[in-house]
């Protein structure tokens, strides 16, 4: 089973829920941190990293000896990553989406592909928990291909917990698509509600069953609960604002380890999800 943890708004507690849930469930669990722009789960898990590899995306490389400057490559590229000026071909690798259209269209076979570094993937473990995350190279714009690379390490014989990035656009979709369940984490504030609604619409589009965790559940107002009821979005857990939890988090520690009474609550959360997924 794949459970993706998403939120819309940032800073609502996705990583807290993902890491504490993963650690509560013992072995045969893997945690994939797909927030590759700002990965944080490792700060709480402290995994032993066994493998670190760079990930590249293909971008064109022109052999000017073979090129006849026909401009077909520039014409097919919808991302303006190639331009031909007289007898010079300029490529803009940072704009390239790696579609391979230029390679296919070139009549002289003058285009091959080289790599643009997207970032790194690190694979490790902590006790029985398998851990994978990606770290986008600073300056790189495109996170979805790196997210897909992290997800390619999904093992079907294990429970997979995905820590998704905030927002509702392509990186979030890349982190939720194909999941069996999306656990949404929000806070009961106007910003939390507004962004939750957008995220719920995205999950609906993907037709994935979903449930809600309300973090800092005693701040703000009741509008998130009213919305959840109207949407038939089950509230699976509430985490009240507790300065101790905030401090544990701020130090990079796990709530279930510092405040063990939470371990059972996270296990129950998982049982709830299992019941819903069936």
């Amino acid at each position: 089973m794949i459970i993706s943890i998403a939120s819309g708004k940032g800073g609502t507690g996705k990583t807290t829920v993902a890491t504490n849930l993963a650690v509560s469930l013992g072995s045969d669990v893997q945690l994939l941190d797909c927030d590759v722009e700002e990965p944080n789960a490792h700060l709480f898990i402290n995994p032993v990293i066994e493998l670190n590899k760079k990930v590249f995306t293909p971008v064109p490389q022109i052999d000017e000896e073979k090129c006849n400057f026909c401009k077909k490559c520039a014409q097919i590229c919808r991302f303006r990553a190639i331009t031909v000026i007289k007898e010079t071909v300029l490529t803009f690798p940072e704009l390239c989406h790696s579609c391979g259209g230029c390679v296919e269209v070139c009549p002289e076979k003058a285009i091959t592909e080289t790599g643009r570094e997207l970032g790194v993937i690190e694979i490790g473990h902590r006790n029985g928990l398998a851990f994978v995350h990606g770290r986008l190279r600073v300056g790189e714009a495109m996170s979805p291909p790196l997210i897909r690379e992290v997800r390619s390490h999904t093992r079907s014989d294990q429970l997979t917990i995905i820590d998704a990035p905030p927002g509702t656009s392509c990186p979030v979709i890349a982190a939720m698509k194909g999941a069996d369940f999306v656990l949404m984490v929000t806070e009961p504030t106007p910003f939390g509600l507004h962004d939750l609604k957008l995220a719920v619409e995205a999950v609906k589009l993907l037709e994935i069953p979903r449930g809600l965790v309300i973090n800092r559940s005693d701040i703000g107002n009741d509008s998130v609960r009213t919305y959840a009821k109207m949407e038939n979005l089950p509230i699976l857990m509430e985490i009240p604002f507790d300065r101790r939890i905030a401090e544990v988090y701020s130090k990079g520690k796990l709530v279930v380890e510092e405040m063990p009474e939470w371990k059972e609550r996270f296990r129950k959360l998982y049982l709830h999800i299992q019941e819903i997924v069936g």
Partner: protein
Amino acid sequence: MKELVVISGKGGTGKTSLMAAFASLAENKVLCDADVDAADLHLLMDPELKERHDFQGGGTAVIDTDRCIECGLCRDLCRWDAISEAFIVDSIECEGCGVCVDFCPEEAIDFPIKTCGEWFISNTRFGPMIHARLGIAEENSGKLVAIVRQEAKKLAEKNKLDLLITDGPPGVGCPVIASVGGASAVLVVAEPTVSGLHDMERVAQLAAHFKVPAMVCVNKFDLNFDQTEAIEKLAKENNIRIVGRVPFDPVFTESMVLGQTVLEYVGNSEIRRSINGIWQNIRNQLTL
């Protein structure tokens, strides 16, 4: 004209709440919400909509099954596995590269341009504002951010205003890159947690990569003094100007519930003094 972009790396550190507070202090400015995928500034600004414009993203492949001879070439060429065995394009997976469109021997693939969001010009009690809404699950957020910033500049020029305050998105990817390029300075709102420190470091690297001067303030600084000091130490080592600290206070949430900026809600308090001080430091940095 000066542009201050408020970013954070990590989400939920208080970018929008602080940016809204600055909006209530600054004069002669245009407000710009560049967090187009989860825009929240309007919830505090209560904008009165003046203009609405469609945002045209890229094209999406659509196969005309009547013309399709099921040769499979498009499926072979598509690097996103967006075309099913039944030759239906998954519009969420389609990258919009158009390679299938150009190679289809039957010219059976259309490539309609999608409207994938909208952007707005509004008036608020703090002056004009440009904001946007990216459609759910859409791409091209960077392109929409670029439009929003460009329109905000135009509006400022038209109204002879000399400052743009832009609320940026979290992260360091495409929409953030589109938000910081060419800005006069960025303010990084950091929180004193291991995550806050980690993410602030990356977003500061991003600002340096694009040669935009950075400032930092620590929000909720009293939740963890060690992390606050670690953030400020890191800032000093990287020539990032420290502009202040804001204490943790439930008034941020309370004012948000009422749709107010925190400075409209609080009296003469520590919060007001700290935000006033930060804004004064930012003004000095921007030489306003």
